[in-house]
């Protein structure tokens, strides 16, 4: 009897989950898998931090994921048409948060590293740029869908589209170049998808590069006036571009050692040695640690998972009933996969060192929450499609829905 009721409860729980079940499954699999490398990396974090308890890292990670999945659940219950209006409201909020973050003036070794603000009372810190990215993508999706039937002129698009974009990017840039660059690429990709004329797009890309050069020059000219991380980026890019694997390129070398040590089957859970030397073993370089511990099998598993997620996002976009829905799904979905690819590319030295996390795997609250927020939005879009199907079929047959997966 008891088993029956729990079965029924489980069924009821799953029936409450709307949207693409496979995206749910991928997110859950990644989340469950993430405990392994995070817990492994915790041993070194605890050791270096002079903390004797590794379990607290696990609990913290669980709390982040729990909050993230709650957020995902809430988001997918929200009909996606509301996001259109919400983005208009959230844009000013994102600006305010970014300005507040910059005003805090947190520095790491003299360089401007204001990325986080502390959430009052809760005592957790929060990376505002990640939140702003999601909001911006929704905002751009809204604009592009609004313009779907009109001929877009360059002049008209500047004020409602590019001005907010550049303002926001300018606020993120001083503290986090890589996020800015990725966000700019993602925005460009989204407006490209939204049918923005390619020649205008190229002009905007050019403008973006010019803006960046201006910023670097200003920062170089007045190094005291603006504590910045320009030197850090320069050295990172230089290290990458001169092609040699120099001693100075410490992190990449350790990451490659980790990958090489893993072999096909890996050293086994928790047996990573390089986690002791890789500085961001639980976030930026987690992919290297995963390959070291779980080998090529683990690495391929992750790549397949993200590719599968990409595939499901494309499907959901295809099936979405409105242009806004399509652009929304792509706007928040593709950055997840793109970021994952960037993270792995850094570990295998395909890309210069950036501070990008591996979505849903890396520890760190903001990254997890914003990824969950984005997935929640995607699910919300696919749930809408389901609703329409349901209305058509008027049958409570989940198999029917699964059959329409492709």
């Amino acid at each position, binding site marked *: 009897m008891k088993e029956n009721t729990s079965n029924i409860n489980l069924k009821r729980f799953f029936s409450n989950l709307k949207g693409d079940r496979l995206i749910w499954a991928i997110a859950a699999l990644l989340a469950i898998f993430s405990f392994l490398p995070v817990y492994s990396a915790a041993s*070194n974090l605890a*050791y*270096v931090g002079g903390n004797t308890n590794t379990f607290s890292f696990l609990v913290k990670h669980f709390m982040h994921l729990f909050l993230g999945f709650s957020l995902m659940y809430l988001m997918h219950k929200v009909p996606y048409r509301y996001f259109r209006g919400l983005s208009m409201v959230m844009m000013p909020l994102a600006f305010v948060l970014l300005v507040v973050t910059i005003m805090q003036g947190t520095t790491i070794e003299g360089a401007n590293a204001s990325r986080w603000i502390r959430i009052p009372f809760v005592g957790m810190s929060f990376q505002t740029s990640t939140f702003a990215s999601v909001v911006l993508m929704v905002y751009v999706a809204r604009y*592009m869908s609004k*313009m*779907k*039937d*009109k*001929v*877009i002129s360059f002049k008209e698009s500047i004020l409602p589209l590019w001005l907010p974009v550049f303002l926001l990017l300018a606020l993120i840039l001083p503290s986090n170049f890589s996020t800015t660059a990725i966000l700019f690429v993602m925005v460009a*990709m989204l407006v*490209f*998808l*939204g*049918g923005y*004329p390619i020649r205008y797009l190229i002009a905007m890309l050019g403008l973006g590069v010019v803006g960046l050069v201006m910023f670097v020059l200003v920062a170089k000219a007045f190094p005291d006036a603006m504590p910045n991380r320009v030197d850090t980026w320069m050295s990172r890019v230089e290290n990458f571009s001169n092609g040699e694997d120099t001693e100075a390129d410490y992190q990449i*070398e350790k990451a*490659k*050692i*980790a*990958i*090489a*040590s*893993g*072999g*096909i089957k890996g050293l086994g859970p928790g047996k990573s*040695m*390089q986690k*002791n*030397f890789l500085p961001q073993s639980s976030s930026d370089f987690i992919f290297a640690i995963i*390959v070291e511990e779980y080998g*090529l099998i683990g*690495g*391929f598993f992750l*790549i397949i998972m*993200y*590719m599968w997620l*990409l*595939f499901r996002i*494309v499907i959901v*976009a*295809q099936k979405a009933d409105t*242009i806004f829905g*399509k*652009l929304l799904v*792509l706007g928040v979905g*593709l950055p997840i*996969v*793109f970021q994952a*690819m960037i993270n*792995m*590319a850094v570990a*295998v*030295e*395909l890309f210069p060192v950036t501070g990008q996390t591996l979505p849903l795997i890396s520890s760190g609250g903001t990254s997890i929450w914003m990824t969950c927020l984005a997935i929640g939005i995607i699910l919300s879009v696919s749930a809408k499609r389901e609703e329409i199907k349901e209305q058509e079929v008027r049958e409570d047959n989940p198999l029917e829905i699964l059959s329409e997966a492709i």
Partner: protein
Amino acid sequence: MAVNEKNILNRLYFIAGCMFIFGLAVVFKLLTIQFVVGDEYRALAEKRTVKDVVIPANRGNVYSVKGNLLATSIPKYDIRIDAITPSTKTFQKFLKPLSDSLAAYSGKSSSYYQKEIKKARANKNRYYLLARDIGYSDYIRLRDFPMLNLGAYKGGLIVEQTTKREHPMGGISMRTIGYEREDDDGNITRAGIDGAFGELYLRGVDGHRLKQNIGKGQWKPIVDYNQVEPKDGYDVYTTIDVNVQDIAHHALLEQLELYDAEHGCVVVMEVKTGEIRAISNLAKSPSGTYYEKRNYAVWESHEPGSTFKLATYMAALEDKVVDTSTVIDTGNGVKTFYGKRVRDSRHGGYGKISVGRAFEVSSNIAIASILDDAYAKNPMKFINRLKQWGLNTKLDVSIIGEGDPVIYEPGDKDWSRNALPSMAYGYNLRLTPLQMLTFYNAVANDGEMVKPRFIKQVKELDKEIKVFEKEVRREKICSDATLGAVQAMLKNTVEKGTGRKLYSKYFSMAGKTGTAQTEYWMKGWKENPRYVSSFAGYFPAENPKYSCIVVIHKPSTKKGYYGADVSGPVFKKIARKIFTDTPIIDEIESLEVNNASVEEEFQDYYKIANTYKTIMPNVVGLPAMDAIALCENLGLKVKIEGVGVVTSQSIPKGQKVKKNQTIVLAV
């Protein structure tokens, strides 16, 4: 431009395709790292994270013949403090107590330490030296000082252990005990016994242990055993006797100081076995003190002078050229051989004297004449004698750096007609003191020439690894007749010859003095003559136990330079000390002495006691203890009142008593 679904989807496929290719690129890179450059990185991983740590083996000890420590390795500690590590709270709380403790330890003021450690913290000095080269007990003491007792992570304590070679005897015999030292270029200096046997026995085999880096500069062992266990070095037991060594060292030192000599050495050797009981080498430092600078006894080969006459006389006697009673005319003390003048030390010469007497007074002319007469036509006959005794070959002693002996022969560049008469009194040839002593020892040992030895055995704890036996160089160097003659001459030299100042009626010695000019080929020798004074011999004269040589270079000529004056007293002092230190053994059979009268009285008493077992004796006046024993032997029960001597007894004297009757004794 209007947007339709188809348009979006086409662009989407393009983007998704790009991302997929990106993913493939990651996979490709991943495979490249794994399989193409994988080995290189795996090797790098090993190099960066695993290191082979050498666990040094404990070096063996060097012992004297009686088991006294001569050289041992002990741990020494450097104590430092990482002035950054302690928290501000800890630092403020414990700085004063720590400084107080350090002040009490070192004698410097507490405020000095407070200032210095504060300064170290301000300068971010993570390696501030508190004490260097301290012993284990001091290390334990410092470790418990406030702040330091919190350990490395909270208190900043840094302990570095090194192993130092210590010589418990200090400077005595340091050069012979020796050392093995490696400089920064990897050149190894091996001095003395420690150096000679370092590689073979003392050093041991270093262990190895693989350690893995676990970050923060910390290394942990990979497995709980050592890959190679260290094997401690063996202990080396030398032939050195600490007591004899002590005597030799101080006797030499005293004489060197007295004569302000440049350097000198003394070797004491056991006659029968060739074991070196003492070897001391002292040289003057620029500041005027003496220290063990070089192993002169083993290394320095020089013209021995008159001590060599033992060999030349022996050759002449053995070849029956002369006998001890042959009379030689030494003339007026100056004789010219092939244009070179030879002088005797006594002004006016010795005139006509016997060969035996010539030896005793050390006449140069006599022996030069004998050799020149006998061997001038066939010098090789004489040279071959010396070769037969091995005087031209090294002893191959274990200590590294033995000097080469030099005996010239016809055909050599340095050979001349004058060579033979010069060799007669110890010039034109070179020997080390140890080589000379070996020859004297052979005479003392009735012709058996044994090789000098410094090492007796090698042990691992109590287990014998190797025992070094006596090595014989020549079974019999000459006939007993010759031996008897030269032994008598050596004895007479001390009794009535050049060594008569050393004569003592309490103990006998035999030996030969030597006073050789040195550096005479240099300019200005006449104004500033330099000599080598030596004395070689053995004691006691009959059944000799030890042979000994003393060589002192360049004594101050203002004070004297004759072998008998400079070196002889060292020899005598050693002989006397050993003589007085040798106990005379006398046995006493038993400490129990039978006294006839006591025995008789006891028997009488015993008889009475057994006969009159039932009659009460008089116990008044006896000590209570004796009275009780007496009464109880009669079978009485004794009650006693008081302490001391019995004053009255309840059963009067002479009365018959029964068993278990009670008697009261008032005391």
